[in-house]
């Protein structure tokens, strides 16, 4: 970074942060990290916790791998990367179990599954192995934020329609229930998460025509 005196937030670096939010969103465009995105989005709270954990793990692991990139022999890089990620995830897991026990119970195995979240591996392989620490850090934060954004949207929609609450607070008024409104139980069940993400993709590509896939070969 310092040799060419590029400013810390040059337009190139800002692009690293901004692109994953829309044009190259990890979930809807790169198709990475779907697994955890869908399973824990029944409510908003676990989605937010999950998003924050991923931001932490991705930011730090991208920096660590980027610092080590000259030292890692290519043949065993996957194991090295997994070890870095796994150590960070253990930290997150112990931290959640100590300070947010309820949420950590709800997330159950999915905290551990951050290790195999393909976003993290994918970005390490595609970016951190070939770039300097600071851009890698921004890339990690940007992608994790893009991931978190989708998580929060899905969590919001599913909690609103599925339980009539947002972040645990009742938002659908009592009168609506007495007037015959009912929560849509389908939204609590796993399949609706897929349909919700499908619709998000639809809306995004409708707005952003260049993302539309060609008729498959």
């Amino acid at each position: 970074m310092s040799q060419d005196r590029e400013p810390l937030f040059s337009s190139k670096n800002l692009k690293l942060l901004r692109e994953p939010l829309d044009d190259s969103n990890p979930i809807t465009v790169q198709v990475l990290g779907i697994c955890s995105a869908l399973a824990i989005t029944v409510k908003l709270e676990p989605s937010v916790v999950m998003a924050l954990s991923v931001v932490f793990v991705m930011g730090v692991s991208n920096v660590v791998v980027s610092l080590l990139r000259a030292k890692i022999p290519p043949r065993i890089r996957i194991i090295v990367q997994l070890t870095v990620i796994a150590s960070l995830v253990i930290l997150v897991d112990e931290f959640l179990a100590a300070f947010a026990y309820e949420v950590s119970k709800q997330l159950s195995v999915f905290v551990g599954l951050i290790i195999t979240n393909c976003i993290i591996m994918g970005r390490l392989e595609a970016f951190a192995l070939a770039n300097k620490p600071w851009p890698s850090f921004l890339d990690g934060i940007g992608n994790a934020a893009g991931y978190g954004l989708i998580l929060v949207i899905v969590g919001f929609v599913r909690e609103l329609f599925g339980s009539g609450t947002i972040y645990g607070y009742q938002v659908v008024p009592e009168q609506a229930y007495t007037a015959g409104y009912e929560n849509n139980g389908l939204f609590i069940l796993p399949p609706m998460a897929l349909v919700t993400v499908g619709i998000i993709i639809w809306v995004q590509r409708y707005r952003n025509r260049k993302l539309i896939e060609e008729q498959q070969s």
Partner: protein
Amino acid sequence: MENLVNIFVKSIFVDNMIFAYFLGMCSYLAVSKTVKTSTGLGLAVVFVLGITVPINYLIHNYILKEGALTWISPQYADVDLSFLSFILFIAVIASMVQLVEMVIEKFSPTLYSNLGIFLPLIAVNCSILGGSLFMQERAYNSLAEATVFGLGSGVGWFLAIIGIAAIREKIRYSNVPAPLRGLGITFIITGLMGIAFMGFMGIKL
């Protein structure tokens, strides 16, 4: 025996890795363009799950669990190493995947080039680590139960990816709205398949 069949059927249909837990979605979505490649990937997943779950079961029960080290000496009765399980499980999985990769490269180069990047990514296929973590959480009683659970989950994943690949091959001839083409419609189809699979919920043998 009855118990084993029960676990097998349950892990294929009721606790299906894809439709009930969304594990292994990334490669599921990316590789399911043709039935042929998905068969290969599906078999690799069955194989890797069938090996890693029993190995991790042994590691969990004889090294990591609280009091598991008593077979060395009774003084280790209150050693609890389970915080190490993520690292050990993932190490076993990564080395197993390397092995499978070498075997496939040797015996089927076409399959190898078809699978491409997704073979190393089996190591980070959530369904594999997920299988081990569910095994740990559900505390199966014997090695046989753990093995059957691993194989069953693999077969469930296999069925799911074959199903979606076949549907995607057919859907090429339909007029899907342009923004929904490809990824979007695959998500929605998977959701519908998931609703169908929920019909199996609560089945007891």
